[in-house]
């Protein structure tokens, strides 16, 4: 799997390269600045990019803007964004085009190596991996906001929230303390309630999460 990495802090960059290489990924480019990132993404067209939000030269949100720009030129280019803080505003911008292949995680999550690598693979495969904190902000901001999601039961909300983090059915089941069969039943109910037809099967999971995260 070919990866482009953008991180300006040398220690973390080296650590990430070591980590990704250990899990048999090929870091084709490791850049430090926003403009370098954009050109690396456009020339290498990696399977996935791991990008820090704040990069030189302005140290604002260059990584995010480069990622959004690259995705507008190469639709669906999988990008996993890392940051010291998460904002729903940014999650919304990343998801604005309504496609999967997006991840948005706190940098701390890197320390849980296995889950982090899982998230990178998920994003590369067109899924979404949202930080639990983004999901929590969303839940706090949700109440009486979304009409379409109102039909979901509390349990279905919980399932969808864990799905949004990019977890598999098995992981959802473990987290909520139910069987995998129950989880897939909930997921089917969610699909029905959100009017997601079986024809779009592969995509349904991503679409449900996007519907959930958008706005």
């Amino acid at each position, binding site marked *: 799997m070919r990866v482009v990495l953008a991180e300006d802090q040398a220690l973390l960059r080296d650590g990430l390269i070591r980590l990704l290489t250990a899990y048999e990924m090929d870091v084709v480019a490791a850049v430090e600045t926003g403009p370098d990132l954009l050109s690396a993404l456009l020339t290498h067209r990696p399977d996935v990019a791991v990008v820090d939000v704040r990069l030189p030269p302005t*140290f604002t949100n260059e990584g995010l803007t480069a990622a959004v720009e690259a995705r507008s030129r190469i639709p669906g280019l999988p990008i996993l964004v890392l940051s010291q*803080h998460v904002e*729903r*505003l940014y999650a919304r911008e990343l998801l604005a085009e309504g496609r999967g292949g997006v991840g948005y995680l706190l940098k701390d999550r890197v*320390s*849980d190596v296995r889950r982090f690598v899982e998230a990178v693979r998920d994003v590369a495969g067109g899924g979404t991996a949202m930080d639990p904190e983004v999901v929590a*902000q969303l839940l706090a901001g949700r109440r*009486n906001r979304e009409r379409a999601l109102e039909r979901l039961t509390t349990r279905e909300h919980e399932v969808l929230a864990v799905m949004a983090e990019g977890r598999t059915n098995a992981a959802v089941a473990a987290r909520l303390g139910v069987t995998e069969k129950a989880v897939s039943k909930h997921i089917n109910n969610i699909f029905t309630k959100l009017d997601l037809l079986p024809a779009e099967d592969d995509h349904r999971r991503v679409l449900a999460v996007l519907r959930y995260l958008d706005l």
Partner: protein
Amino acid sequence: MRIVRFGPISAMRGPLAATGRGAVLAFLSLAAGLPLFIAAVLTLAYSTIVIGVLLTPPVILGVRRFADWERRRALKWSGVRIASPYRRRPDTAADGALVALLRIWWWLWSDPATWRDVAWLIANVPAGVVLGLLPIDLVSQSFRYLPLVPFVLVLAPFLARPCLRVHAYFSAMLLSPTARSALSARVGVLTQTRSEVLDSSAAELRRIERDLHDGAQARIAALGLDIGLAEQLVYQDPDAAVALLAGARESSGQVLAELRSLVRGILPPVLAERGLDGAIRALALTLPIPVEPELDLPTPIPAPIESALYFAVAEAFANALKHSGATRLGVRVSLDERAMLVAKVRDDGRGGAYVSPGGGLDGIRRRLAAFDGALTVHSPVGGPTTVTMELPCASC
């Protein structure tokens, strides 16, 4: 039902009222002004003996009350604003009776505003009488030329309002603060707000120090300890080492979470990344009720002003969420033609909000005062509430 009156009677009402006010003004200028003037001069003259010192406070404070009446009158009757020029009363609570009396005497007579008040009293005798009675005087004069009487009777009252206005301007010349006293009042305000700023920034630094000391630093020390233990155990008891390391990883996550919330309190990262516009939008998205941001902001806004306004808006949101029971919030921020950044936070809650010392709104007021800004709260009982925050931004 409202009764609408037409015709000459309603057209004459305002001018007739103004004529009446003129008569009151003339009467008081003479009947109150002249005795007060004489009393003021006498207390000064007799201040070489005890009686003058004793009489100074009641007499001069009486003069000030009369002058304050004139200041209010000028605003109410003629829309002329006259600011109060007096110096702050010294704090004499700790002084003995005699010292206190002498300090008050000095406070009153050393204030140029007192001398200007007294000068106004005497100049106001002719000014008040002439300008107050002019319409009535014209009418009475007209009786010498009988055919003119009806015209004068109708037209003279229309002079009353302009006369009152001229009188208000005359008063403003003597009763307003001089440039010097306005300046020293300004220095007083700046001294006050500066010391509030120093206090609050010192308190802020103390809070940050304590948070770091009790939080992140303590946790990182414990983390070092755990890793050190794991290092020693790794060969003898690999399972225990792994458990220690897993614990260490978890507490590193907690340290980071703590640091994140600390950083948010100092300067929210999104404000650094996206400016005020993005930061308010991001904030709005995290609230449990819908917020409609209408933002029309100049760029760039100087960082200190940006951050002051951000925290003021955040505090206003928090306040509305906590107390109002609102179901919707609105925030509008824009730059007006006075180069003031104006932020209005509205909620549809129960209203009745006011600025209580030490409360959330008072905190906003102090935050803004440091930048010469102001806070006004409009919150009738039953709502809705609008909190308006203004900050001057000369370079916007």
